[in-house]
């Protein structure tokens, strides 16, 4: 508690010192504000203005306000439910990663990010193989006589929620897990010595200390679920609609820009409210984070502990590997029977689909090998990570000890994450297709659009880490003669480097998974791996499907490999 007290008063003196040089503070804000102003607010304003102008012409009464409110209700409901479920699954996982070492820890950790990048069509195929009406689970249940008819899974609310948990648990695992790992276990030990039970120690010590990180993770998860598109469209089926799906239909299929603008404004209002609330809550919960550079993970000791760790790790494996297993297995497996042998399903193992990926059978002008696509993906992802960190690190450092101006600015910088990618993409089309910014065909537009989504991740991931830097260390460095920049490099950055690596892993994953407006803006021939998967899946034929699964498997391995490599750094502490 004493450390906490010192951090607070220290924060005040630091804040006092910084507020004497507002110019410096403004300079630090410049990159992020400029970038988001140009790449987010200008296009957004352009598309909303177009929509509002059109609404003035056609009359306001034609706007589907009733429908919009209905859709908003469902959007909030499913996002709230999904967030709660994701936290329930993610927290024990975060504890597991923070406190214990076990054999496949690093690989499992890397793979938890894989769902994040997978195209929804492929995830849907994985879930169908597992939970569909002819999936393994239903078959097993029917054979055991527990049920008579298969349980409907696809096109239910349950499918949407499960997919959201599958996609977003890694956010909780990483943001909360990293903080938990840094938490000094002696705090709880002391509480236990003083007579607190394990539950009391958790609720009174651990939970309050984790609160800011938990809120940061919950806000990100909620925003992702709130703007969910593919999951609702494909796994939820046509009976469900979120604001994002509705915007897509109105803007791109019906070209009803007034309706799309109305929905976008509703969505932005909700996002802003949510970000403001979560920031306030998170500030109130802000606490010092104990010792720095502490590593509390250990091997499980007692048999009970070993069992608990084993069960928890197994459950995470089931959640993350099983839905991924179906497409992976399918990429090596020829299930189409040879002619006339329909009943005896032939299960031949094959590498043909992988070989075929390198073979331009059609002589297509747009053919690219998986290596070229991986290269394109990697370039865009690396550019995204660097850009998001360059913008995000100064912003997070400022927001860790904010003054009134910073607090006011924050929600506006995080807004891109909770804004319709469709609206934004169309706005970019309007703004960047003519001078003075005729950039729409430049390959740089891809990392720029990805960075808009990655930036809030970097900020939310780094803010609590910066806030947890003990002021004494900075002061000591200053006393020893280090100038402010030297303090940044030698004190701040090393302490937050775990969080930096974690954030860059997210930035990579966001870019590899083609999040945000890139799928909406036009693109010249710059095929990335997800684009390759969609191309293969858009035509009939067993060979095309097999290749799509092979490409998916490569994408998964590629993502896991990149994340492992990034986090390799982290293991070397």
């Amino acid at each position, binding site marked *: 508690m004493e450390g906490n007290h010192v951090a607070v008063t220290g924060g005040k003196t630091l804040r006092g010192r910084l507020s004497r040089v507002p110019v410096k503070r403004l300079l630090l804000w410049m990159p992020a504000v400029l970038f988001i102003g140009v790449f987010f607010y200008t296009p957004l304003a352009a598309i909303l203005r177009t929509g509002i102008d059109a609404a003035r012409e056609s009359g306001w009464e034609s706007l589907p306000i009733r429908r919009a409110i209905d859709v908003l209700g469902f959007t909030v409901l499913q996002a709230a439910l999904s967030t709660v479920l994701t936290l329930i699954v993610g927290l024990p996982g975060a504890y597991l990663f923070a406190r214990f070492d076990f054999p496949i820890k690093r690989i499992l950790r890397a793979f938890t990010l894989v769902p994040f990048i997978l195209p929804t069509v492929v995830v849907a195929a994985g879930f169908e193989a597992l939970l*569909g009406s002819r999936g393994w689970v239903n078959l097993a249940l029917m054979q055991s006589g527990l049920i008579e008819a298969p349980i409907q899974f696809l096109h239910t609310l349950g499918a949407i929620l499960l997919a959201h948990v599958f996609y977003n648990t890694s956010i909780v695992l990483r943001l909360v897990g990293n903080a938990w790992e840094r938490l000094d276990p002696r705090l709880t030990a002391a509480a236990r010595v003083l007579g607190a039970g394990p539950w009391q120690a958790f609720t009174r010590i651990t939970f309050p200390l984790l609160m800011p990180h938990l809120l940061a993770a919950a806000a990100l998860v909620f925003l992702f679920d709130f703007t969910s598109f593919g999951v609702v469209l494909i796994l939820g089926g046509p009976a469900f609609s979120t604001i994002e799906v509705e915007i897509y239909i109105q803007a791109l299929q019906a070209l009803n820009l007034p309706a799309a603008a109305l929905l976008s404004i509703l969505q932005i209002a909700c996002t802003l409210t949510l970000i403001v609330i979560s920031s306030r809550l998170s500030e109130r919960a802000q606490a010092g984070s104990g010792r720095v550079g502490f590593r509390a993970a250990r091997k499980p000791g007692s048999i009970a502990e070993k069992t608990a760790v084993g069960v928890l790790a197994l459950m995470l494996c089931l959640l993350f590997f099983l839905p991924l297993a179906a497409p992976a297995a399918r990429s090596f497996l020829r299930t189409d029977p040879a002619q006339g042998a329909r009943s005896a399903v032939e299960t031949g193992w094959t590498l043909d689909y992988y070989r075929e990926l390198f073979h331009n059978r059609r*002589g297509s002008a*747009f053919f690219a090998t998986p290596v070229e696509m991986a290269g394109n993906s990697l370039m865009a992802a690396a550019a995204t990570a*660097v850009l998001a960190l360059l913008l995000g690190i100064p912003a997070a450092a400022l927001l860790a000890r904010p003054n009134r101006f910073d607090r006011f600015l924050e929600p506006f910088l995080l807004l891109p994450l909770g804004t319709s990618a469709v609206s934004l993409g*169309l706005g970019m089309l309007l703004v960047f297709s003519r001078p003075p910014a005729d950039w729409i065909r430049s390959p740089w537009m891809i990392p720029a659009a990805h960075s808009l989504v990655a930036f809030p991740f970097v900020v939310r991931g780094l803010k609590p880490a910066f806030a947890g830097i003990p002021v004494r260390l900075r002061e000591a460095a200053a006393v020893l003669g280090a100038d402010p920049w030297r303090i940044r490099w030698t004190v701040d*950055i090393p302490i937050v*480097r775990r969080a930096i690596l974690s954030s860059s892993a997210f930035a990579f994953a966001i870019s590899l998974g083609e999040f945000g407006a890139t799928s909406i803006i*036009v693109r010249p021939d710059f095929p990335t791996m997800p684009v390759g998967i969609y191309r293969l899946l858009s035509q009939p034929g067993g060979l095309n*499907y*097999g290749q799509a699964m092979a490409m998916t498997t490569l994408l998964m391995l590629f993502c896991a490999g990149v994340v492992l490599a990034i986090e390799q750094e982290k293991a070397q502490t």
Partner: protein
Amino acid sequence: MHTYPNRRLIRESAHAARIRSIFGTVSVLLVLLLPACQKANPERTITLMTHDSFAVSESVLQQFEQAAGAKVIVLESGDTGAALNKAILTKAAPLADVFYGVDNTFLSRALEEGIFEPYSSPLAESISADFRLDPENRALPVDFGDVCINYDREWFSSQMLAVPQALEDLTLPEYEGLLAVENPYTSSPGLAFLLATVAHFGPEGFADFWKSLKANRAAVVDGWETAYYTNFSASSGKGPQPMVVSYASSPAFEFIYADPPRDEPPTASLTGPGMCFRQIEFAGILAGTPNRALAEKLVDFLLSVPFQEDIPLQMAVYPVNPQAALPEAFLRFAPLPETPAVLAPDEIRAHREEWMEAWKEIMLP
């Protein structure tokens, strides 16, 4: 004690150095690599805006580029509806010189919005009048394809069930739960199939048909990929439904891309009278292009025999040019329906929203 922060600083700065060096390396790599992916531009370029399904053989495209002395830049801009809407949205400052891929369900909107300027290509004269829907030649037909129901041949023969002969048959009890259709709001074949039912049953009668289809447990999914690979039993996805709304050409692709190779595809199309809807795709010169002469050459190329003969195997649709020969797999396994459903583009434009709304109230209450 007083040495503690000092030692710490030394250790931490080693980390900082490492991070700095990683950043440095990545930044240098980026600066070196990203310009490399902007391919060197020859003097002249011509830009083609199209949908994501566009494909062409490298050799065919190169022939044109050499003959015209210009490089073709292809902007893939989303599915059919999205690509057109992007072209409309940017008509004041067009992103491209030629647009290819507006179909007859969206043609009226494209013409009303005035995104095209007329071009009477000499090659258009030999094309059947059935395809030339714009008398002013702003949009010229390039290809066509029929949206039909595909069925799982082996499933029907193993169940000894006759395949439906007309749309009405789909509501019979023996076909209960056997058909997957796409949502017309999010899928172009879904919209085409809805239009086929409107053409067949009339604007008054089609709603009753869909009510019966709903009662007969037709599955509704978002798009073609899901319907075909997740729901359809004869595709590699091995789904639950043996009938799916797809294209007349799909069986030919199932034959060409069969794995292992087979003598006949596992699927076939239901091509009875009025069961299929004909989609015709058009191309046009975007109004205001500064490259009118090259744009004309590109449109001529799209209508020329080499590109037209390339169409079936690249994009799974049929060429409109009668001189273009069809590949063997198309002749054998992708027969054209004799009497596809037809609706005038103006009628579609006038009533599309209303028909879709009616469909939605029945299928997605």
